């Protein structure tokens, strides 16, 4: 990113490493899938999804379901966006695009690496790839847009912001 961040980088990194697991193992769906937090930095996030028989999309091929890879990419993109925005506050996904380049190898852990390549005041643009060991041979790629929830007029958004603060143990104020 070209813009200089409007927050203390060291403090932000420390907060991110504390908060990030709540985006993965910490959500009920993340736990059901088996998402694992790997790493986070400002504008970057890595999350993995170990192979599990529950995640199979085709019992004939035993390939992991495309939708499971989507959920993994969605979560990685969300964390990358969260880490890059001015305020560490709750986010809404506007849209997500996934390209499935090849079938994931049965048995292999899928790793999603997301990069927020541009963050404005309210909007974050993110790209991500999912691979099973070799990032040069991705399983899928993603492109997503996120928007910062405003703690103002809209009740839904106000609820989102409040919940985010509760989830993140009051660390949301940057």
């Amino acid at each position: 990113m070209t813009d200089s961040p409007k927050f203390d980088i060291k403090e932000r990194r420390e907060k991110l490493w504390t908060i990030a697991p709540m985006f993965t193992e910490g959500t009920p769906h993340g736990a059901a899938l088996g998402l694992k937090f790997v790493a986070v930095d400002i504008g970057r996030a890595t999350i993995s999804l170990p192979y599990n028989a529950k995640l199979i999309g085709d019992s004939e091929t035993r390939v992991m379901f495309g939708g499971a890879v989507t959920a993994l990419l969605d979560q990685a993109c969300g964390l990358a966006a969260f880490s890059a925005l001015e305020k560490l506050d709750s986010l809404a996904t506007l849209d997500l695009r996934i390209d499935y380049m090849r079938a994931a190898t049965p048995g292999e852990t899928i790793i999603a690496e997301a990069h927020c390549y541009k963050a404005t005041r309210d909007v974050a643009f993110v790209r991500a790839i999912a691979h099973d060991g070799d990032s040069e041979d991705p399983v899928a790629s993603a492109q997503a847009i996120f928007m910062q929830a405003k703690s103002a007029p809209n009740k839904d958004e106000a609820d989102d912001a409040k919940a985010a603060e509760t989830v993140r143990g009051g660390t949301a104020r940057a």
Partner: protein
Amino acid sequence: MTATSKFTEAQVKSVLSRMPYSKLIGVKPLLMGHELTLIMPYSQEVIGNPVLPALHGGAVSAFMELTAITQLALQGGHTKLPKPVGVNIDYLRRGKPMDTYARALVAREGKRVANVRVRAWQESFNEPISMLHGHFMAARQKSNG
């Protein structure tokens, strides 16, 4: 909906049973005539934000993909399950802690690839929480690819 072939609940269940992932999110079929609606019942497993609470975007997306594949598999009578090539998902409303429904419309089915649109809703069909459109490889009959 486009002209659909007739299929039964047993056939829908048979397709779902070939996708173990459908069990993880608890997908069930609802047939009205020959129009298929799938249900993702509310469960703790599909929650993304436990405080709101709100459904996980990834669970809703996967549910819509599964709906597209099921509709295509039934409609095209494919021996192999269709595979996604690329999908676009718009998140329109927060998924509330309640049952979610999805229905797929096959916009075009070619020899190798099909374009499918899926709508997911909760309280009202006219207030979708999310919509998906994308392409799926669905080889008719024998040849795959």
